[in-house]
Structure formats: C-alpha cells, structure tokens
C-alpha cells in the first residue's frame, strides 16, 4: 500500500498545473459566456504531447497508465478550467482506447496519431434518446452492404460534435431478435463525421457552455468496412473495457473541481473582513470547508485505488464506481459549500465558484447516475437482489 506519487506522477501533476496556468480563470469564464470551444487550450495540450498520456508509444503516446491519465485530468480540472477544460480533451486522452486495444495495426497507425496531434477532433457517439443506460437496446442500425455499412439512427449527449470531424459510433449490426445474447450484435466504428448525412443539433444546457453537447440525426451514413473496430458484433464487449477508466477519470476530475472550489472559498474566507475580522475565523465557515476537504481527499483515495487496480490488470469495477460516486457527491457538496462561503459573491460569475457548481453537476450525472451506482454496489458488494 503506497499512498505517495511516484516522481513521474508528481512531475505530471506539477507540469500540468503550470501548463494550465497559461489559461486564467477569466479565460474559462469568457469561454463559458461566449460558448466558443477552447481551441487554444486543446491545441496547447496537443502541441505539448499531453493527449497521448495513456496511448502506446508505438502510436505516438507516452505509454503511461490510467493512473497518470487521472492525475493529469484532475490537475486540468483543478487548475480552473473544470469540466470545460477536461471535456475539451477527453476524446483524444480517453476515447481512442478501443482503437488502441482492438484495432488492427493499420487502423492504429491511421486513426490515432492525427487525434493525438490535435488534427482530428473526435466525438463519442454511444448514448441514445429513449433507452437511457439500457445500452443493448440501442436503435441505431448499421446494415451490412458490399464493402461497408449503411447507418441510420439517433444519438444524444454527444460532446464536441459541433467541431468534430471524426466519431466513434456504436450501432446495431444484427437485430436484437436475431442474437442469442442481447449484448451481441452491436459493432463499433471509427469514421468520418459526414455532415451531409448527419444533422448535429446543439443541446442548450446549464453549464460547460464552451464544450457543446448534441443530438445526432444519422441518415444513410456510409461507413467502409475498414472503419469497423474489432469483429462485427463485438462492439458492446469493446465498449465495456472503457467503462471503468471513464468512471475513474470523471471521478478524478470531479475532485479537481471540488478542490478548486474549496481553495477559492478558503482564500475568500481568509481575506473577507466582516465585523472587523476575517469570516474564516468563524467555525461556522471553517468546519464545512474542512469537512469538504476531508471528504474530497478520502474520495480521491478510492479513485486512485481504482486506477491502480486497473493499471495492474485487476478487477476494479466496484472501486471505480464507488470512487466516481464519492468524488462527484463530495465535489458537489464542496462547490455548494464554497458558494455559501462566498455568500452573495458566490452567485456572481466573476468569483468563479458558480461556474464550478454548474459544471460539477456533469460528473454527478454522467456517465452514470448516483442511483445506478448504488444499485450496482448493493447488488455486487452486498449481494442484494437486482431491483430493476
């Protein structure tokens, strides 16, 4: 049991915090107001080679693990950019794993390096309206034709699709009624986001305005066979590989946001003088902040434990889920507590905590809700009957 960073991990955290200091809180506030994708930030991360943190060296990555990716993404969120910064580079950092693990050598070399260089921008199109987390029921259909597939369907909550030129797409290649197990018959593709065949509609949302979320309406999209990742019908199995790392990264990012909020609140409490003394002298201010700190750091241990287990090749489903749950719930409480600490100023945008509060609701809800995580833990850890 070792709770310390390695030299590498410490250097990654320090280097990221420093790199991100080029982008001030005001930069992120402006992006939140104008809704323009943080191109400068994502390009700077690509240019400095950070996008390949967890990709193999053979495709231009650094060959590090999910632990290092989590440390990096946590620092990215913590530096002030919150989910906007993190989501703007999530695709390249994380979403190319299926190609790296299941793609052919030709596909790896063709698909991954341009993404790591920031030339190709990707979106991850899995979730659909009407099915929620019941993924095997997804309705997007890829019909096999000579040399490829003809795709029709709808996707929802697809980040970055306004600016992406590539997409990772999960679609059903064999109808549900023709497969033995409902998890069979889905296939994964990495292909061009052809805007003549795909209508991308922006979803107006509460926060993270600079990184768009969208609905996709796919109409007769042609995907060549060369763009299918893994065997036909194996798409669900491939996607499953990425679920735990995704929870780990989201958890790490939530903690980063929570830390940023607590830091801002503590600074304000030290400096704000009312009744001739700093408000931070009052235990009514101190205790909620101290409690949030303790909760966040405890959650971080669970997230890092999950990351360590994953990198060792061990099962980490329980820890990854529990870590994401704790991180997101406590980070939400931290942002809310920070806002209350700042009082009225907490509601003003220029103090930045209201933006953190709006954005921390994303890891609280995505990629899986707290309720579904508790269902999972009740069933897997406590042996209780499935409730749904």
């Amino acid at each position, binding site marked *: 049991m070792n709770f310390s960073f390695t*030299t590498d991990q410490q250097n990654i955290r320090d*280097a990221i915090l*420093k*790199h991100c200091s080029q982008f001030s809180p005001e930069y992120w506030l402006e992006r939140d107001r104008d809704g323009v994708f943080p191109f400068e930030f994502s390009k700077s991360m690509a240019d*400095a080679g950070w996008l*390949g943190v967890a990709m193999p060296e053979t495709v231009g990555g*650094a060959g590090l693990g999910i632990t290092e990716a989590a440390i990096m993404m946590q620092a990215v969120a913590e530096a002030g950019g919150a989910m906007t910064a993190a989501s703007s580079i999530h695709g390249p950092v994380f979403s190319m794993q299926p190609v790296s693990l299941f793609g052919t050598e030709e596909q790896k070399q063709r698909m991954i390096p341009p993404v790591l260089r920031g030339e190709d921008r990707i979106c991850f199109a899995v979730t659909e309206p009407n099915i929620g987390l019941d993924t095997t029921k997804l309705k997007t259909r890829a019909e096999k034709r000579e040399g490829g597939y003809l795709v029709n369907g709808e996707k929802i909550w697809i980040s970055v699709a306004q600016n992406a030129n590539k997409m990772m797409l999960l679609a059903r290649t064999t109808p549900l009624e023709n497969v033995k197990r409902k998890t069979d018959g889905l296939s994964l593709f990495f292909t061009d986001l052809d805007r003549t065949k795909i209508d991308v509609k922006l979803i107006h949302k509460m926060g993270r305005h600079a990184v768009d979320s969208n609905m996709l309406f796919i109409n007769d999209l042609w995907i060549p066979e060369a763009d299918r990742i893994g065997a036909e019908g194996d798409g669900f199995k491939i996607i499953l590989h990425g679920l735990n790392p995704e929870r780990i990264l989201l958890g790490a990012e939530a903690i980063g946001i929570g830390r940023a909020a607590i830091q801002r609140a503590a600074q304000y409490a030290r400096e704000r003088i009312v009744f001739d003394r700093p408000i931070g002298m009052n235990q009514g201010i101190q205790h909620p902040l101290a409690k949030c700190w303790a909760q966040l750091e405890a959650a971080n241990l669970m997230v890092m434990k999950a990351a360590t287990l994953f990198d060792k090749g061990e099962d980490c489903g329980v820890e990854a889920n529990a870590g994401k749950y704790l991180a997101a719930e406590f980070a939400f409480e931290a942002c809310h507590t920070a806002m209350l600490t700042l009082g009225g100023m907490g509601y003003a945008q220029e103090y930045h905590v209201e933006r953190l509060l709006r954005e921390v609701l994303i890891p609280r809800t995505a990629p899986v809700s707290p309720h579904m995580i508790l269902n999972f833990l009740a069933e897997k850890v406590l042996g209780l009957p499935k409730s749904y």
Partner: protein
Amino acid sequence: MKVLVSVKRVVDYNVRIQIKPDGSGVVTDGVKHSMNPFDEIAMEEAVRLKEKGKVTEIIAVTLGGAKGEETLRTALAFGADRAIHVKEEGEIQPLTAARALAAIFKKEGAQILFTGKQAIDDDANQTAQMTAALLDLPQATFASKVELDGTKAQVTREIDAGLETLEVDLPAVISADLRLNEPRYLKLPDIMKAKKKTIEAVSFADLGVEAAASLKTIKTTPPPTRSKGVMVKTVDELVSALKAKGLV
C-alpha cells in the same frame, strides 16, 4: 561547450509560508515543493544556448535529500543531458553549496556555471558569487541577457541604476535574473525522455568537500503585519501627510 546548471528544490512560490511553532524554521513537511524559479530561468537559458548550437552538453546539479530527484527530473525534462545529485540530508549553507559546485565544475571541465540569482527559500544570493571566488573565475550576476562568443560571454546585468553590460572570459559563473527569459512549459514526451537520462549520486565525501558551519539560524519569525493605510484624496494631502510623518 559543457555547462553546469545548479537547481534547488524549494517550497513552491504559491505556498503560504508558515513558521514552525518553535521558531526553528518554516514548515516544509507536506508542503508543495518545486524548482527554484530563478534556477528554472538559468536552466531555460542553458537549453536555449544548446538549441542555438552554442552549448553541447548540459549537466544539472542539485544538492539535498532524496526528493531532489524530482527537481533533477524536471531539469532533465527541460533539456539537461544528465544530472548529478549531491545527496546530503539536512541544511546546506551557501558556502557548502559553493564548495560542492566548484568541485563538480572542476571535475567536469565545464565552461559556464549557470545558477539562479538566489533561491526563494533563504534568499541568500551568495552561492554563485562564492563559487566564482572559490574557482577564481569571473562572475556576471543578475543576468538579463547572455550572448556567447567563442571564449567570451557578453552579459547584460540588472543593477540598481539600470542595465550594465559586462564581457567576461570563459570559464565563468553567470546567475540569472527574472527577465532573462520565460521558461518553457514542459512537454510530456520530454518528461518521458528524462526518465531514461542518468542521475549520478555523489556525496560531499566523494567530492572532497567539507560542510561549512559558518551560519547558525537563531530564530525564524513572520514579518510584522502591515498596519492599515490612510486614504488621501489629493497629491497635496499626500505630501503634507508624508511631511507630517517626517518622511520627506
């Protein structure tokens, strides 16, 4: 041309410094540390000179405990070719550091020792000067511009009266001021490359260096808190307020 760059691990400049209750020093346990910012500037300058083809090899040196390796890895990620870790726990006084740097400088046959003008922990601003004295070499401190020309260096210095330009024969000791350059942001591939570079560990005994004990810290106290200022409306009011205090 071989150059030596000394880098020190210090409490990070963003940390709110706290004094130990017994006044024996500042709290360093569990506190974020990083490379002394002035040393980072010195390191950056050496790397730029190497990129211009003026320097062929950069050796980073640090003195201190095991954690100094982090600082050396950062230096290697900046672009140092190899590193030397003078591994000694406990306090190291400027004269001791100067003796160790002088010994390494001689052993390596380096042409320039780059350092930061001072470290932000003790702000001693002595090591560069003492090292130059021990080696009997020219020194150009507080550099804001460095140009190498064969066997000479032209160094612009930031002094109280403005700028001063010196020409020094090499080998020499140069210390970096704030405006010499803006250090780069590290790239992940460079951090990965740094892992494969060598760090040689040596002790004072290996270098034939004796630790100096010329300084003793008696007490550390926080600076006095500033009292509340007075707001004035006009220049006249300001002048008369200053006069009243006997300041002008």
